[in-house]
C-alpha cells in the first residue's frame, strides 16, 4: 500500500520536476541573484579583513581605537590586488568624499615603512591630518558589513549618515525618486490613453460578428508581430516635424506650424500607448464576449436609456477586464526603455534608462539591481491591489 503511494508520489514529482526546474532556473534564480546583488557589499570587508574584527565593538562616537588604526595599516600593507584596492577606494569614497586621495597616500606611506615600523607604531595622523577626523573612520566602519541597504536606500534617494541614521539625499545628489515618480506618471498616462482607446475599441469588436470582428482584432494584434524597435522607429518617422502626422494636420488646416510631437512627453505617450494597446484591448474583449448579448436589450426593455444601461450594466461587468488590462499595460509601461530613449527628450527618461546606465554605463550592479527591486516591489504591490479588487463579489457573480 504505502509502497505504491510512495511510488505514485515520486512519479508525480517526476512529472512536475521539469516545470519546477524551469521555474527555478528562469524565474527564481535570476530574482535571487538580483536581490543579492542589490544588498551585497563585500568590497570593504574583503579588502580590510582584520579591520572587521578590530572595529566590531567600536561605538562610532569615541575616537578610533589603537587596534583599529593598527588593523588598517596591516590591511593596507596586505592588499596585493590593484583591482581590489581600486574597488576599495571607490567604495569608501562613495561613503565619504576624500578617500580618493587619502587612501592611496596612506597606502604609499605605510608601504614605505613596512620594514621599519610595526603596524601599531604607525602614526596615521602624521601621514594625513584627515585620519583625526572621525568621519573617515565612521565611513570605514559603516561599510564593513558584507550586506548593505545603501543601494536600496539610494534607489529612493535616501542614505545613511556617519552615525547610521537614514537621511534624504540632496536634490542635486540623486534624482531617482523624481525619475521613479515620472515613470509612474508616464505609465499612468499611457494606461489612461490605452483605456480611453481600448475600452470602446474592445466594445466595438465584441459587438461585431464575422469578418468585421476578425479585422478589428487583427488590427490590434498585428503590431504584436512586429519588433518593438521597428514600431518605435516608425513613430519616430511619423511624429517628426515634417512627418506624416504633422503634414496631415497642416494640410487639413488644423495647425499652421508643425506641432512638437517628438522628443517630448506627448510623443512618448503616443508611441507607448500604441505599442501597449493590445494588452488593454484583449483582456477587456475577452471579458466582454462572456457577457450575455441579451443584457443590454434587457436593460432597455426595463426602461434604461442606452447611456444609463451602459453605466449600470455593461461598464461594471467589463471592469474585471479593464482592471487586468490596466494592470498589464501599467506593469509593462514602467519597464519601458527603448521607446522613451528614442522618442522622449531628456526630461522623459524613465527608470529603466537609469538602470541601464548603472548596469552598462558605470558597472554599478548593486544600484541597477536595487532599482530593479524597487520596480518589482511596485509591481507586486499593484498586483496585490488587483487581486484584492478582483476577489470581490462582482467577480464571483
Amino acid at each position: 500500500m504505502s509502497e505504491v503511494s510512495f511510488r505514485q508520489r515520486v512519479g508525480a514529482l517526476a512529472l512536475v520536476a521539469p516545470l519546477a526546474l524551469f521555474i527555478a532556473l528562469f524565474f527564481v534564480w535570476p530574482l535571487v541573484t538580483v536581490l543579492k546583488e542589490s544588498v551585497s557589499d563585500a568590497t570593504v570587508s574583503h579588502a580590510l579583513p582584520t579591520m572587521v574584527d578590530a572595529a566590531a565593538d567600536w561605538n562610532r562616537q569615541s575616537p578610533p581605537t589603537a587596534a583599529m588604526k593598527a588593523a588598517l595599516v596591516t590591511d593596507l600593507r596586505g592588499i596585493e590586488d590593484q583591482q581590489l584596492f581600486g574597488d576599495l577606494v571607490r567604495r569608501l569614497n562613495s561613503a565619504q568624499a576624500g578617500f580618493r586621495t587619502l587612501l592611496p597616500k596612506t597606502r604609499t606611506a605605510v608601504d614605505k615603512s613596512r620594514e621599519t615600523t610595526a603596524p601599531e607604531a604607525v602614526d596615521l595622523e602624521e601621514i594625513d591630518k584627515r585620519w583625526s577626523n572621525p568621519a573617515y573612520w565612521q565611513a570605514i566602519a559603516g561599510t564593513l558589513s558584507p550586506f548593505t541597504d545603501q543601494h536600496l536606500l539610494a534607489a529612493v534617494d535616501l542614505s545613511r549618515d556617519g552615525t547610521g541614521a537614514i537621511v534624504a539625499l540632496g536634490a542635486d545628489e540623486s534624482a531617482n525618486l523624481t525619475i521613479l515618480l515620472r515613470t509612474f506618471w508616464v505609465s499612468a498616462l499611457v494606461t489612461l490613453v490605452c483605456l480611453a482607446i481600448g475600452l470602446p475599441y474592445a466594445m466595438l469588436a465584441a459587438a461585431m460578428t464575422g469578418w468585421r470582428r476578425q479585422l478589428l482584432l487583427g488590427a490590434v494584434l498585428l503590431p504584436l508581430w512586429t519588433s518593438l524597435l521597428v514600431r518605435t522607429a516608425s513613430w519616430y518617422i511619423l511624429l517628426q516635424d515634417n512627418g506624416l502626422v504633422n503634414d496631415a494636420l497642416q494640410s487639413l488646416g488644423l495647425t499652421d506650424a508643425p506641432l512638437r510631437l517628438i522628443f517630448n512627453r506627448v510623443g512618448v505617450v503616443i508611441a507607448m500607448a500604441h505599442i501597449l494597446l493590445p494588452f488593454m484591448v484583449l483582456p477587456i474583449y475577452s471579458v466582454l464576449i462572456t457577457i450575455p448579448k441579451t443584457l443590454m436589450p434587457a436593460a432597455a426593455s426595463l426602461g434604461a436609456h442606452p447611456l444609463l444601461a451602459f453605466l449600470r450594466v455593461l461598464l461594471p461587468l467589463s471592469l474585471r477586464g479593464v482592471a487586468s488590462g490596466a494592470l498589464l499595460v501599467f506593469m509593462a509601461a514602467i519597464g519601458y526603455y527603448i521607446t522613451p530613449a528614442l522618442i522622449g527628450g531628456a526630461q522623459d527618461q524613465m527608470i529603466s534608462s537609469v538602470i541601464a546606465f548603472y548596469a552598462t554605463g558605470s558597472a554599478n550592479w548593486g544600484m541597477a539591481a536595487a532599482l530593479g527591486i524597487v520596480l518589482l516591489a511596485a509591481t507586486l504591490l499593484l498586483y496585490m491591489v488587483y487581486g484584492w479588487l478582483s476577489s470581490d463579489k462582482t467577480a464571483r457573480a
Partner: protein
Amino acid sequence: MAIPRIRFDQITKSYGSLRVIDGLSLDIAKGEFISLLGPSGSGKTTLLMILAGFESATGGGVWLDGKRIDHLPPYRRDMGVVFQNYALFPHMTVADNIAFPLQMRGVRKAEIAERVKRALDMVQLGAMSERYPAQLSGGQQQRIALARALVFEPAVVLMDEPLGALDKQLREQMQLDIRKLHMRLGLTVVFVTHDQSEALTMSDRIAVFNKGIIEQIGTPREIYDHPATRFVAEFIGETNLIEGTVERVEADMATVRLAGGSEIRVQAGTAATTSAKVLVSVRPERIHLGPDAGERGNALRSTVVDSVYQGDHLRVQLDDGAHGFIVRSDRRTAEWPQGAAVVASFQPEDCWVIAS
C-alpha cells in the same frame, strides 16, 4: 370593439432578400394571453423584437393602446420582456435586479423597497433578495426575471420561450404559475413558444406561425379541434390526415369518399364543397378499436401493423389497405397483436375537413 392593446398592421420584415415576416396583422386585446406558436425560424422572435423595439419592421405599423409606437426606442415602450436565458444582471443582487426598472423610472427609494418586496413575494422568493443570480437555480432565476418584468406594471409582458431551459416538471409548474399571475393581475401577455402543449395549456388565443405568416389564430379549442390548414393540423398535436373527395354536402354534414373506396360522414367545414379534394383530420384518441363499429358512425376495417405500450395508452398503428392510421387506444381494452383484424370506428363529429 374597444381599441386593442396592441395592433400589428401589415408588418413585413426582411433581412436582405430573406422575408422573415410577411404582411402580418394581429390585434391583441387588453388582458389577453396570446401565444405565438410555430416551428423554429418561423419569425416569432422577430415579431416580438419588433414589438419590443429591438428590431424595426421593414413595413407596416405597431400600435399600443391606439398610439403608434414604431418610432419609440425600446426604453420608452413600457413593455416587460422575459428573455429565454433570463438576462438577469449578474453583478446585482436579486433585489437590485428587480429594483432596476423602478430606479430607471425615478420611483422613490422607500416605494422601491416596498414594491421589490411585493414582487419577490409574488414569485415566492422573498428569502432570496440578497443573493446573486449565479447563486440561484434555473427555475428561481426564471421567477426573478418574471418578477423584474412585472414589477413596473408594464402595459404588456413579452416572453420569448421563457421556460425552454427548464426541465419538464418545473416547466409545467411554471406554466400554471404564470397563468395564475396573468389572471390575478389582468396582464396582457405575448408568449412565444414552439411547444404546442405549452401554448394549449396557457393561452386565451394561439397564433400559429409558419414562414412569417399566421396560419391560424383562435382559442386552443378551435385550433385543436378545427385546424384550418394541414400545417396547423400536423403541428398541433398528432393527427391522422386521410385523403378523399367530397361526395355530398347536406346541412352541416358531408360525405367523403376515401381513396380506398369507403365513404365516411364528416363535419362540413368551410372546405367541404362537392367534389373538392380534401383531407379529413381525425385525432388518434378519437378512434375506437373493436370487433365492430358499435354506435359510431364511421368504420374502417383494418389490420394491426404494430402496437406499442406507452404507459397511459397503447399506440396502435393500423392499415386499412389504402391508408395508415395511428390510434391511441385505452390500454385496459384488449391487446392488439400484430396482424389482428380490427374495426376502427369514429364519430362524424370528430372528423374535420381541411382543404388539400
